[in-house]
């Protein structure tokens, strides 16, 4: 049974991960002045639903906070408070706490300090108080954590101790008369009787009398009306409380009296007065929700450096397997079903065609059928890929918090605008985008947007703006992070790069190349290590993370106007269009997306050998760096190393994301095809010049060429004279 519970717990955490973005986007729209009641409701529901689930698992810290949060949001919902920007701020900050408490609970995050929770609880309580008289009682009216009984699938030991006290003598008589309304609610006196009977667990006394005196003649009887009343005699040991509880559901739809005969009355002292249904739930918790008394456990050492403990916890925390299930909209499955249906039909036409007598007619028919199947296969493939697609929204919305916190630390006023959040990407990519985006946005806050004083001095609006957008561009997803800051200070970047020995002192670099230096390992332009970006990770890590996803990063920057980072990502990690090439006895794949054109090397093709050993080929008046793929990959020519004859070989003109082109020489170019991308580094390591592998029709492996890395290596080799690689080649 425990595993069932675990499974549900996982679903709960999954749901939290769905609810938090809803909360985020709702609060963001409130923040931007959209007071749509439906938004408020959605926000409320998100917190409510987290609380409800958390309570079922006894996640008390989470429940407690969610409860206070919910109560405060309820004031908004009931319009007893206005969503002023201050209150919305409070909510947004509380959301961050809530989100951290969820991470704490699922083991992915650190323990949230009690004082932090208490602080935000206090702010929430002040919102509740602002909401007027309903404040404290409202929050008290519901069970506080202490009252929650964590749900367990086994172990039914609850509730059994309040009812029967065997030595209590006497009888209790419960009289009740249902009103019409009881039937309207599909209730039935029978239900009340059976509930009362259940109180008499020992089967001692259970007498039922029915008063039929009010029954009209049959002709006048209205089946919707109530005419009967009952009197039930129970043992005196049954408490008033238990009886009242039975009538809790019926409320004023049923008149009820309790009277006792003989005996000392029920034990357990002062039973609450009958009929006051809410009494039981209204009392106790009021005190417990005082923020001044945060829940004591677990006792965190207050001033003793708690960091190592936390880190140890974090290290021990089991890596929660990223949910192996996906939720798919029904229409997508339906669409796929339709396609499969068509495929079945296409197959039977194919069979029919094949059974035709030999001849031209049959050949034409088969060809036509084959064409149909081909396009259907492609559609099915796209459709299946679509199942893996997920909007980037969830990640994007998380970035609001990142920018919020970062700008707070940097003491800058910055708004983040999101565009194209519904753009869909393969879910693996979505999941792995969080870290790089977080870093880039922190970087944009820290280094991109100028300080408020500087902005004002430059005649810019006080508030900085970062736009995070996503969109499709020629078969890829491009995610842009655009700030309206000061742009990259190229002189400074170049100077630092020279100081740090990243480029040689006499290097003459183009603007784009200077921008690229930001991604060099160990490069950081910040004069001081700030709280934000200077955490030992640089943009090089970001670049690596994006590259690991098959993506590229490029920069555009204009001094005084701002900087834009473009992340270009494949739509899916699984399949791509490729061009098969032959390279020294190896079949390889060049991604079609990065191939611009192909050409053959003829005697008249102009190939220049440069003094540093590099080569360039003339193409319509331009010179492109030329590289022999086999040499680049260190593959030996099966025909021997003596002079690789370029004549007659094929050239692929390829380009990287920022548009830099290069010519790659291969032995021959074959057909184009879609290939399934398989990771090479799962069981091996990264290989320079190779991005992944694929499996050919005969079951053998072909490597996929990492065009952008080859282009940049080649370009750099041509440009940077001090590069040791070029020296070696020249020698």
């Amino acid at each position: 049974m425990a595993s069932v519970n675990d499974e549900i717990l996982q679903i709960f955490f999954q749901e939290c991960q769905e609810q938090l973005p809803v909360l985020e986007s709702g609060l963001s729209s409130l923040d931007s002045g959209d007071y749509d009641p439906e938004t408020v409701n959605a926000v409320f529901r998100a917190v409510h639903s987290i609380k409800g689930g958390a309570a079922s698992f006894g996640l008390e810290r989470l429940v407690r906070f969610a409860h206070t949060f919910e109560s405060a949001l309820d004031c908004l919902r009931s319009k007893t408070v206005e969503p002023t920007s201050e209150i919305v701020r409070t909510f947004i900050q509380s959301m961050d706490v809530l989100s951290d408490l969820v991470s704490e609970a699922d083991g992915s995050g650190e323990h949230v300090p009690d004082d932090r929770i208490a602080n935000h609880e206090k702010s929430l309580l002040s919102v509740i108080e602002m909401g007027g008289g309903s404040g404290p009682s409202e929050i008290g009216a519901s069970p506080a954590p202490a009252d929650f009984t964590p749900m367990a699938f086994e172990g039914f030991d609850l509730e059994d101790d309040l009812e029967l006290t065997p030595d209590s003598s006497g009888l209790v008589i419960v009289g009740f008369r249902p009103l019409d309304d009881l039937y309207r609610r599909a209730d039935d006196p029978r239900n009340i009787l059976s509930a009362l009977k259940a109180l008499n667990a020992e089967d001692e006394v259970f007498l039922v009398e029915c008063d039929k005196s009010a029954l009209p003649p049959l002709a006048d009887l209205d089946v919707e009306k109530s005419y009967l009343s009952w009197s039930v005699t129970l043992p005196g040991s049954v408490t008033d409380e238990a009886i009242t509880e039975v009538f809790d559901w019926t409320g004023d739809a049923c008149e009820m009296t309790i009277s006792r005969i003989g005996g000392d009355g029920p034990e357990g002292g002062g039973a609450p007065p009958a009929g006051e249904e809410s009494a039981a739930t209204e009392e106790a918790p009021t005190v417990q929700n005082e923020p001044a008394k945060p829940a004591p456990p677990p006792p965190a050492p207050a001033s003793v450096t708690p960091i190592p403990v936390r880190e140890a916890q974090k290290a021990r925390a089991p890596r929660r397997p990223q949910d192996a299930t996906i939720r798919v909209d029904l229409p997508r499955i339906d669409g796929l079903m339709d396609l499969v249906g068509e495929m079945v039909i296409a197959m039977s036409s194919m069979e029919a065609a094949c059974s035709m007598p030999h001849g031209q007619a049959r050949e034409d028919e088969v060809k036509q059928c084959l064409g149909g199947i081909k396009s259907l296969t492609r559609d099915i493939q796209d459709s299946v890929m679509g199942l893996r697609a997920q909007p980037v929204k969830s990640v994007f919305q998380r970035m609001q918090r990142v920018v919020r916190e970062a700008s707070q630390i940097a003491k800058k006023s910055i708004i983040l605008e999101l565009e194209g959040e519904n753009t869909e990407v393969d879910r693996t990519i979505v999941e792995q985008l969080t870290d790089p985006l977080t870093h880039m946005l922190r970087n944009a806050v820290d280094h991109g947007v100028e300080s408020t004083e500087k902005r004002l001095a430059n005649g810019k609006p006080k508030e900085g703006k970062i736009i995070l957008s996503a969109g499709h561009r020629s078969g890829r997803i491009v995610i842009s992070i655009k700030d309206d800051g000061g742009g990259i200070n190229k002189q400074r970047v170049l100077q630092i790069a020279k100081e740090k020995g990243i480029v040689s002192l006499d290097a003459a670099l183009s603007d784009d190349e200077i921008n690229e230096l930001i991604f060099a390992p160990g490069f950081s332009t910040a004069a001081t290590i700030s709280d934000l970006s200077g955490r030992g990770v640089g943009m090089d890590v970001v670049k690596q993370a994006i590259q690991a996803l098959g993506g590229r990063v490029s920069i555009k920057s204009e001094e005084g106007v701002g900087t834009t980072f473009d992340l270009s990502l494949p739509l899916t990690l699984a399949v791509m269009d490729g061009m098969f090439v032959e390279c020294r006895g190896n079949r390889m794949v060049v991604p079609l997306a990065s191939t611009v054109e192909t050409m053959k090397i003829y005697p008249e093709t102009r190939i220049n050998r440069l003094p540093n050993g590099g080569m360039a080929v003339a193409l319509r008046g331009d010179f492109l760096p030329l590289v022999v793929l086999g040499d680049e990959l260190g593959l030996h020519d099966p025909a021997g190393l003596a002079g690789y004859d370029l004549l007659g070989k094929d050239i692929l003109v390829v380009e990287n994301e920022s548009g830099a082109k290069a010519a790659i020489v291969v032995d021959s170019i074959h057909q184009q095809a879609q290939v399934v991308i398989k990771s090479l580094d799962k069981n091996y390591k990264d290989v320079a010049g190779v991005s992944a592998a694929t499996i050919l029709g005969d079951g053998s492996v072909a490597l996929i060429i990492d065009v952008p890395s080859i282009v940049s290596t080649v370009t750099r080799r041509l440009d940077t004279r001090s590069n040791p690689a070029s020296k070696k080649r020249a020698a």
Partner: protein
Amino acid sequence: MPDSATVQGGVSASPTAADAPKTCVLTVDDSRTMQMMLRNTLEAAGYEVIQGEDGVDGLHVLEATKSIPSAIITDINMPRMDGFGFIEAVRKDDRFRRIPMICLTTEVDPEKKKRAREAGATGWIVKPFNPQSLIGAIRRVTA
């Protein structure tokens, strides 16, 4: 006690009786966590469970099902159509208005109880529920 039973007519399949067809319960909740818990608890007690993810969906499910449920459990806070709306809608439909409906709420304040009653709820259970109280509530209305 038999008098009352004839007034309302009765559904009386005991869920645990091996030979009887299973008693069907509809649960409506937008939280998958809750839905899983309800399903597990009810199925373990021998009920057949059908589910809807909000009020609108609940009505669809009710409309589509062959076996009219003997009881409905519904959450209150849901998108599209909340629990109150759902209860009212069910009560308006002659085919379904006799089905006992139990609300699931996280806390019960008198105001909420009143609204639930007004909408036509038969009763309520406070979340987090324990299996015993849930089954107890279902037994009470389906006995």
